C-alpha cells in the first residue's frame, strides 16, 4: 500500500489501515507533509520501512494518549479554578460587608449619622446585623458589636466608650478613628472618654490617649 501523503493525516490513515491487517510487503509510505511522522523521518519525502511505521504508530499513540491526559488535566484544572472562583466569589461577597466595608466604617458613621439607627438606615439593618452576628472577629466587627451592645446611644459616646475596651486591637482602632473625628464634638463627651482612657492598662497606648485628651481639653 502506498500513500502519496496529501495532508498531515495521511500517515495516520495509513496506520489505521495497517492496524486493520493490511500488512502487505509493499508497506512504503511517502510522507511529504506528515504532521506526526516528520519528527522521526528526516528530509520529508522518504520511503517508510515497516519498522519506521511501527515507530510512527507508537509516536502517534503516545501523542494521543498524552493529548487525552492533557485534556483531562486541563478539564480538572478548569473545574478547580471554576470551583475556587465560585467559592471565592461567595467569600468575597461575605468579606465585602465586613473587612472591605467602606474605609473606617465606624468613623464614617460616627461623622455622618451619630446613632445606630443611622447606621441601619445607611447600610441596611440586615447587613449590619449580619456583620455583627456572623461570628467573625475583625476589628470592624468587634467595634460594631460594641456599638450594637449599646443601642441608641450617641455614636460619639460609643466611640469614646470603645476606647475603654480591654482588647488592645479595639483600643488602637478606636484611637485611629478618634484622631480623625471632630475634636470640638468630642469635647462634649470628654467625661466618658476620660473614664474610658483610665481603663487602658497598656501604658504606651494610655500615653497616646492622654495626649489626645489633652489636645481636646485645650480647645
Amino acid at each position, binding site marked *: 500500500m502506498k500513500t502519496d501523503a496529501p495532508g498531515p493525516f495521511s500517515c495516520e490513515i495509513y496506520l489505521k489501515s495497517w492496524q486493520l491487517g493490511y500488512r502487505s510487503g509493499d508497506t512504503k509510505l511517502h510522507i511529504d507533509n506528515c504532521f506526526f511522522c516528520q519528527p522521526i523521518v528526516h528530509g520529508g519525502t522518504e520511503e517508510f520501512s515497516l519498522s519506521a511505521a511501527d515507530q510512527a504508530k507508537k509516536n502517534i499513540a503516545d501523542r494521543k494518549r498524552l493529548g487525552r491526559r492533557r485534556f483531562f488535566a486541563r478539564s480538572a484544572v478548569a473545574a478547580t479554578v471554576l470551583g*475556587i472562583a465560585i*467559592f*471565592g466569589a461567595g*467569600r*468575597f461577597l*461575605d*468579606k465585602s460587608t*465586613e*473587612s*472591605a466595608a467602606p*474605609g*473606617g466604617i465606624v*468613623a464614617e458613621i460616627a461623622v455622618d449619622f451619630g446613632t445606630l439607627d443611622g447606621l441601619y438606615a445607611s447600610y441596611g439593618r440586615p447587613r449590619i446585623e449580619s456583620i455583627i452576628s456572623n461570628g*467573625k472577629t*475583625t*476589628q*470592624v466587627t468587634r467595634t460594631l458589636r460594641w456599638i450594637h451592645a449599646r443601642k441608641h446611644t450617641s455614636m460619639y459616646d460609643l466611640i469614646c466608650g470603645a476606647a475603654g475596651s480591654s482588647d*488592645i*486591637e479595639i483600643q*488602637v*482602632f478606636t*484611637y*485611629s*478613628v*478618634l*484622631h*480623625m473625628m471632630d475634636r470640638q464634638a468630642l469635647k462634649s463627651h470628654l467625661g466618658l472618654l476620660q473614664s474610658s482612657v483610665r481603663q487602658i492598662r497598656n501604658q*504606651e*497606648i494610655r500615653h*497616646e490617649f492622654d*495626649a*489626645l485628651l489633652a*489636645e481636646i481639653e485645650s480647645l
Partner: protein
Amino acid sequence: MIKLNGPRLVEAGSAVCITATNVGAGFSAIADPASAGVHLKVTIDLKKHTATICFVAPAAGTGVIIHVTDSVVAKGSSHSLIVRR
C-alpha cells in the same frame, strides 16, 4: 484567614513593616481612608504564602488602619497602629 503581625506604636517618619501570613494569589492591601497619606508597598511571596506591607509612618498622633484581603480563599483582616507623639 490572613494573619497580620506588626507594631502597634511607631515613630513618625519611620519605616513600618507588617507581615501577613496565609496569603494567596489574590492578596491585596489598602490603607484605610482614615489613614490619609499612607502609601503602601506590598511584596508577596507566593511560595511561602507570606506578604510584607511597608509604608512610612505619617504624622505623629495619627492612627493607621491597614485592610488586607485575599479574594480567593482566605478571609480578610485588618491591622491598626498609632503613630507615637
